[in-house]
C-alpha cells in the first residue's frame, strides 16, 4: 500500500491501515519516546498515547511537509505535554549556571550508558537537552514548546550538559581503573 493510500485509510479510521501505520513507524517514534522519557515503561506509555493522538488527529494532516516529520512532531509534543507540566525542577536557580568546560575525552562510551544517563536527568533537563542536542531545536523553539523562557531553556541545557559530563567522566574513570 502506498503511503498516501495508507494515510487515507487511516483517516477513515480503518483498523487494518492503523495496524500497518503502527508497524511502519513504531520503531522510529519509540526511539523518540525512549529519549524523552525517564524509562522504557513510560516510553511505551508515551508511544501508546502518541499513536492514539495520531490516529485521532490524522484528519488534520494536510500533506504539507513530510508525514514522518508530522508524526515525530506529534510524538514529541505528546511527550512534552506530559513532562513539562510536572514541576519537579525546584532544584537550583537555573538562570545562574554557566558551564565553560563541556569537553570530554574522546572515548567509546556505549549507547546504553548514554541513554541511561539521559533518562536519569530531571524531566525538564532531559527534554531540553534532547530537543536541543538530539533533535536540533533552537532555544526559541524550545522555549515555546516548553512554555518557558529562552533563558530557562539555555540554563536547563547547561545543567543537563554538566550532569551528563560528570557521569560520562565518572564512567570513563571507572573503566580506566579496571
Amino acid at each position, binding site marked *: 500500500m502506498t503511503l498516501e493510500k495508507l494515510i487515507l485509510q487511516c483517516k477513515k*479510521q480503518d*483498523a487494518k491501515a*492503523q*495496524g500497518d501505520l*503502527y508497524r511502519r513507524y*513504531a*520503531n*522510529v517514534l*519509540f*526511539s523518540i*519516546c*525512549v*529519549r524523552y522519557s525517564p524509562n522504557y515503561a513510560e*516510553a*511505551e506509555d508515551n*508511544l*501508546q498515547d502518541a*499513536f*492514539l493522538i495520531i*490516529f*485521532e488527529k490524522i484528519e488534520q494532516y494536510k500533506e504539507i511537509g513530510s508525514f514522518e516529520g508530522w508524526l515525530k512532531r506529534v510524538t514529541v509534543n505528546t511527550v512534552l505535554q506530559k513532562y513539562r507540566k510536572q514541576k519537579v525542577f525546584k532544584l537550583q536557580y537555573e*538562570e545562574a549556571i554557566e558551564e565553560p568546560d*563541556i*569537553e*570530554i*575525552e*574522546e*572515548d567509546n*562510551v556505549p*549507547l546504553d550508558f*548514554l*541513554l541511561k544517563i*539521559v533518562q536519569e536527568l530531571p524531566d525538564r533537563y532531559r527534554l531540553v537537552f534532547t530537543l536541543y*542536542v*538530539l533533535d536540533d531545536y533552537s532555544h526559541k523553539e524550545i*522555549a*515555546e*514548546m516548553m*512554555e*518557558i*523562557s529562552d*533563558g*530557562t531553556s539555555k540554563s536547563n541545557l547547561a545543567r543537563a*550538559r554538566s550532569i*551528563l*559530563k560528570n557521569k*560520562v567522566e565518572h564512567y570513563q574513570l571507572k573503566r580506566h581503573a579496571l
Partner: protein
Amino acid sequence: MKEKKHIDRLFEESFKNFEVTPSPKVWENIEARLKEKKKERKVMPLWLRLAGIAAMLALLVTLGNAFLNEDNNQLAPLVNQDSKDIAPEKENTDRIFENTEKEKTLTSEDKIEKVRNSAEKNENGNYAKDEVSKDNSSKTDELQKKAKSGIASNSDKKSVNNKDNNSVVSVTSEVKKNTSNKNVLEFSNYSKEEKGISGNFSDKEGAILKTTNNSEVIASENPLEVFDANDNKKSLLEEVENRKEESIAEVVKNDSKRWDIAPNFAPVYYGSLSEGSSIDPTFADNPQSGNINASYGLQVSYVINKKLSIRSGINNLDLSYSTGGIELGTTSARGALQSVNYGDETIVTTALDRGSIKVEDNFAKDGILPKSVAADSRIFQNINYFEVPLELKYAVLDKKFGINFIGGFSTLFLGDNEILVTSDGFEDVLGEANNLTNVSFTTNVGLGFDYHISKRFTFNVEPMFKYQLNPYTDSSVDFKPYYVGVYSGLSFKF
C-alpha cells in the same frame, strides 16, 4: 592522550542511528483503546438515530391517528366533512334513482302491458279500455283514482285515455322532478321502446292507435320532462356543488385555526449542573456565575388536536457566563489557555488561578508575566447560537386561561463566540473557544401559560428549562450547561 570532544557531539553521534522496538504489548493496548473509541463513537449516533426514529414515529402515529380517525371531526375535517355532507345527499339521490326506476319500470311495463292487453283485447274483439286503465292505475293510487273518476265521469274511451294519459304524465313528471338525467334518458328509452312497440301494434289495429297516441303523448312530452329534469338535475348538482364548497369553506375555516405564529422574547440564564469549567479544568473550583442574556425569535405551531400541538421555529440565543478568582498574565500562545483559539498571535493574554503566577527576581517562572492581579479580574465566555426547537405542547387546561406542558428538543447551531477577560476596567478579547461543537442539542421541558385575548390572539408565558447534551467537542470537559428562559410572546392564529 585522547582528543577532547564536545559532549553534544558524543551524544549526537551515538544516537544517530538509534532505533528501538517497543514491546508488542503497546500495539495490543492501542488496538484495545481504538476499539473502545469506535464503540463510543458508534454509540452516540445510534442513540441519536434511535431518538430521531422514535420522534418520527411518534409524530407519524399522532398524525396518522388523527387523519384516519373518522369520528373525530376536528382531526380530519377535509375527509370527514366532505363525506358527511355528501353521503346523505348521495343516499337521497340513490333512493330517488331507485324509486324512479321502480316507478318508471312499473309505469312503462304498465304501458307495455296495456298495449299488449289492448292488442290482445283488440284481437279478441273486446274494447275494454277501462280494464286497461284499471290495470294501469292499480299500480299507482293516484292514477287509479284519476282513472276511476275518468271512467265514472266519462265512458268515452278517448277521455279515459286522455285522463289516463294525463295522470300518467303527471305521475311521471312528479317522479321525474326528482330524477337525474340518466333516469330521464332511460325513461325516454322506455318510451321509445313503447313507441316502437305500440307503433308495431298500431299498424295492425286502429283501436290501439289511441293507446299509441297515449304513448306518443308521453313520448312527446318527454322532452319537456327532460328539460324539467335537466333543470332539476342542474339545481341538484348545483346544490351538491354548493355543499361541497360549503364544506370546503368550513374545512378552510377549521384549518385556519390550526396554525399560529408567535414572535417571542426571553431573558435566559446560563448555568451549569456541575462544577467544571469549559475554559480550563483548573477553574473548576472558581466562583462562576451565569449571566442573563436574551433570546428572541419566531415560533410556528400546528394544532394536532384540542390537546396537542407541535411547534418549531428559530431563535437567536445569546448565552454567557463568567469565572472569577483568576489573575491575568502574558505568555506565549503555547503556554496560554488550551481552550482558546488565539489565532496567529504568539504573545497573548492568559488567565490562571489566582496566585499561580510566580515571579522571582523579576523573572517570570513558567514563562508567564503578570498582567493584572486585580481582584475583579474575570474571564467571560459569550456564545451565540441559532436555536431550532421541535416541541410538543400538551394542554392541561384549555380555557380562556390555559396551562400546558411542553417537551421536546432543540438543535443549536453555533454562531459567534468569544472568550474575553476584564480586569481593572480593561477588556481584552482572547479569541474563540476551540472546544465548542458546531451543532449541539438540548432537551427541553417547560410549562406554558396562555391567555386568549381574542379568537386570534393569545398571550403566552413559558418558563423553559433546556439542558445541553453535547456542547463540547472534548467529552472530558466537566461543564454541564443548561439555560433557563421565560419566553413570552403574542401568538396569532391564521
